[in-house]
């Protein structure tokens, strides 16, 4: 994690359209033309989107008190 809580970029992919298409075809049994098409689209998508850059996962608070409710509760108690 960087200082701003943003995930650092993951390793860049070494996958090729051909190798991924082969996996789609051999492991899932998709027809070859469809496998190639899907692999190309994923390749484009991988270039377009930086998947690694996203906010860190925040857990849902286990109780009903949100930050705002806690703040207001503190204010009232004063």
């Amino acid at each position, binding site marked *: 994690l960087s200082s701003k809580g943003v995930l650092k970029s*993951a*390793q*860049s*992919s070494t*996958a090729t359209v051909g*190798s*991924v298409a082969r*996996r*789609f075809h051999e*492991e*899932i049994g*998709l027809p070859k033309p*469809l496998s190639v*098409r*899907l692999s190309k*689209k*994923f*390749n*484009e*998508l*991988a270039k377009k*989107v930086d*998947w*690694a850059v*996203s906010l860190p*996962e*925040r*857990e*849902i608070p286990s109780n009903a008190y949100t930050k705002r409710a806690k703040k207001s509760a503190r204010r009232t108690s004063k």
Partner: protein
Amino acid sequence: LASPLIPNWCRPNHPLHFSADIRRLIRKEHSPDGIFLNIPYAQRYTNFEIAVLSTVTAYGLIPHMAKQESGLSVRLHKIARMMLSCDLAFTDLSYAKRLNMPFELGILLAWGKENFVVSAARYESLQRISDLNFGDIHYHERSVGKLIKSLSLWLRQRYPKRAMSLNVLFRRYRRWQKIRRELGRDFDQLSPQDIDQMLKIAEAEYKIELPGRAKIR
């Protein structure tokens, strides 16, 4: 691993008669992590379909849907086989005019499958099928967020060790949608299991990050 209940009392000319070979096949295909999705196949349901698929796969479940079967065998027979190979089921009764969902829900209940039943509007389904007063029906009020939330709560009760936050599930849903938009028609033509496998390969090969699931498999 408990073996699934396979009806063997139907006569050979009955639509739900299973030969010894088919019964063997069902036993082989059976998975406790299998979930049968009894949902409408409609363009306007696509967002909900993605929400259900992204959530159940995040919990490590294997989704089965009637649309994935394209063989020449009788449709009901294929659907029944799929139901028997799963322990869980998800039913959405939002589309009141379509009778397939309530019909299949009846079969699932008769075979003792654990069902998560949802509908769009409160009491809408109960007005039509008052027999459904047996228990919990969840209402998503046509909100994908509400659907993910209630489905996740149900799954969390069954798989506490696989529990994950709603934020993770919402992010996962948004990424599935992004991928679906990019892949277009090719995505819609794939069976849920193919999509799941394809995304696993894409995650590994292109470093595409899909939240959830990582801690299960």
